[in-house]
């Protein structure tokens, strides 16, 4: 069980390939929607005659497709794969996983149709109309059953960091979704409490669901692919509990100076600083990824770097002096892209590049396309975050000066927003390359490529000591 293919991998091929296929498809859809939304920022009249494509709706569609389409499907696929491998047995309850996957993706599609046709909720990270939330709750539960059975039925009773992150992610999402469904839709909270609850959900969805999903893959793939024991592994458990304990407390970080009690953004600031410990531990544990030449570890090392960067940026921007400049600007969008694309997606890309040859029993169709995807994704995300930061800088200067009109801010930020659209186009190209390579591999046409990590078998039994 060291990087080599095992019979258990092909036994769970069906549900995993289904999850991955939906995930990558949604990635391309969301990249396309992202270009429309980005284009509308510098050409406001673009597609303005269509009610279904207002900027507010398209940006919600893009986010929903990305978070609930791409990140959720791909993260769940890798989590199930990791849990299945660590259990030492074929994945159980595969029918549940398949049924859950079909239902989940049907509800993502229904959510997109709902938002476009006027059921948008207006909450960040929660563009799901209330009627799909129950379906998503149950379909996520059905997928999670397979993972939880693999966890509870594992042959060896020890557990590893990948276990903790995967199981936490499986439990957390239904829990926070049900809370937010009750408090925002079934029995809506009063006034600004809605903003506080929505902020708590958005933060928890990142820190307790999406980040653990990708860290579970990173903690499994890095030791497998490098063949080395994780350094300073003893800190992994405190790092994990730090994330779970204080991750959701940063829910009020957008509300600095807002009409809420001042302790809410203050708690967020403290929690974001405490989370630096988790980012530090992750970087410490997985640092051997940086020195490796394997292509999947290139993706993962970029992801780990972005994860640390996003933790630093989060803690800086919750301080009032910084928030005064960055609040309400594109800096928030830039931070979101660092976390969701730079950290989570890059780690998931690396995980998929490592896992798919084992799941299918075939090497990737084209090694060149893998490298092309790496170059496009890394350059795209750097360009996107860079241009958003520059436009945020222009915006921030304009917003702070009461004599500067919004039309002036718009004109000054426009060149940078144009660059952001270019970056989105690069990312769309990268995603399309990824989709093409995935489809060709899944159809099994070529044996041309074999990840470097599949080369020398190592003696490592499992991640960690």
């Amino acid at each position: 069980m060291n990087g080599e293919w095992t019979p258990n991998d092909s036994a769970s091929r069906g549900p995993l390939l289904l999850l991955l296929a939906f995930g990558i498809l949604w990635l391309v859809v969301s990249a396309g929607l992202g270009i429309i939304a980005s284009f509308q920022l510098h050409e406001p009249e673009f597609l303005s005659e269509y009610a279904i494509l207002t900027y507010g709706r398209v940006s919600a569609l893009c986010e929903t497709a990305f978070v609930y389409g791409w990140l959720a499907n791909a993260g769940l696929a890798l989590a199930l794969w990791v849990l299945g491998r660590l259990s030492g047995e074929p994945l159980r309850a595969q029918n549940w996983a398949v049924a859950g996957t079909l239902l989940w993706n049907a509800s993502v599609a229904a959510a997109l149709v709902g938002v476009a046709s006027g059921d948008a909720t207006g909450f960040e990270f929660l563009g799901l109309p209330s009627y799909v939330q129950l379906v998503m709750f149950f379909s996520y539960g059905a997928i999670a059953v397979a993972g939880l059975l693999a966890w509870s039925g594992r042959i060896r009773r020890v557990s590893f960091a990948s276990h903790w992150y995967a199981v936490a992610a499986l439990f957390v999402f239904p829990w926070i979704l049900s809370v937010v469904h009750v408090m925002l839709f079934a029995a809506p909270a009063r006034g600004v409490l809605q903003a506080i609850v929505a902020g708590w959900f958005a933060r928890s969805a990142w820190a307790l669901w999406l980040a653990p999903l990708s860290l579970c893959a990173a903690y499994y793939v890095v030791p497998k692919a490098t063949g080395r024991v994780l350094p300073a592994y003893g800190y992994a458990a405190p790092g994990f509990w730090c994330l779970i304990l204080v991750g959701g407390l940063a829910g009020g970080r957008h509300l600095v100076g807002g009409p809420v009690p001042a302790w809410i953004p203050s708690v967020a600031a403290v929690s974001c600083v405490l989370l630096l410990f988790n980012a530090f531990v992750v970087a410490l544990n997985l640092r051997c990824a940086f020195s490796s030449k394997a292509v999947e570890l290139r993706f993962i090392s970029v992801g780990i770097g972005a994860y640390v960067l996003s933790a630093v940026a989060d803690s800086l921007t919750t301080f009032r002096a910084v928030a005064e400049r960055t609040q309400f600007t594109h800096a928030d969008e830039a931070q979101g892209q660092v976390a969701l694309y730079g950290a989570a997606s890059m780690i998931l890309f690396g995980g998929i590049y490592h896992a798919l040859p084992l799941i299918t029993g075939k090497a990737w169709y084209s090694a060149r396309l893998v490298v092309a995807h790496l170059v496009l994704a890394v350059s795209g995300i750097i360009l996107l975050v860079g241009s958003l930061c520059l436009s945020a800088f222009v915006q921030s200067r304009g917003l702070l000066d009461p004599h500067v009109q919004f039309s002036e801010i718009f004109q000054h930020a426009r060149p940078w927003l144009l660059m952001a659209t270019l970056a989105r186009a690069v990312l769309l190209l990268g995603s399309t390359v990824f989709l093409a390579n995935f489809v060709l591999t899944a159809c099994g046409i070529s044996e041309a490529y074999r990840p470097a990590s599949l080369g020398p078998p190592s003696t490592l039994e499992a991640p960690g000591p």
Partner: protein
Amino acid sequence: MKSDLGFFLGLFAALGVSYAGIVLASNAQLGSLAPFYDDNNDSTYPKMSLGVSVRGQLVYRDLGCAACHTQQVRRPSFGSDQARGWGDRQSVARDYIYQPYPQLGLHRIGPDLTNVGDRKPNALDADAFYRLLYAGSWGMPSYRFLFKARRIGLEAQPSDDALNLTGALEPEAGWEVVPTQRARDLVGYLVNLRTTYDYPEAFPVTAAKPEGAAPGAPAPKKVHRPAPPGAGGPAAADASGPMPAGAGAPTPAPTGAGGAR
């Protein structure tokens, strides 16, 4: 992580911390926030939302207006909100208690809309909103799908609500542009966005000037401004005139929230 049960319980407890810390604690503090009762004019604030405001807020929400516009004014020392004339005071939680879907917003690609129906001296009226929505402006798209073109002639009288369009936007002879019901709701909501009443908590303790202040005359710690007499109704608010500056004599206006209970 010796036992699975221990791990699960730990996970649940850790999640409970953030849930109790953020969601339950803020609910306990704000969940039963009452309207403010003002003895001076025997009325409570904020006023209940009008029907058109509630419908318009749904339009505002489903079009995603909050992707570009916030509805929260921060305090004077924080950003340029008040210097831009967006409001005379910071927004407080009590402003939102009657709004079914408060739209605080996260981005300011366009201006804040907190008090957009009552800004002095240049508050927009309904006609200006219709024109803005129909024509768009720098950085803001037009929303033509909220309007429809109508033929006028012998069969159809010209509508009172027809947009007064000039220049390139002027419709052909025999045609006029009228707002749909959704546009009426949205504009009805926008012109009624007013935070005219000054709650005591909207003027938090201001720090005394460290130097230059005369020793015998300490700076007032809490500044209450007298509420405009008819701040509630839309028609009355327009007539209330400019408010006195914040440094005016502290009046024995509302003290504490006791009167609200």
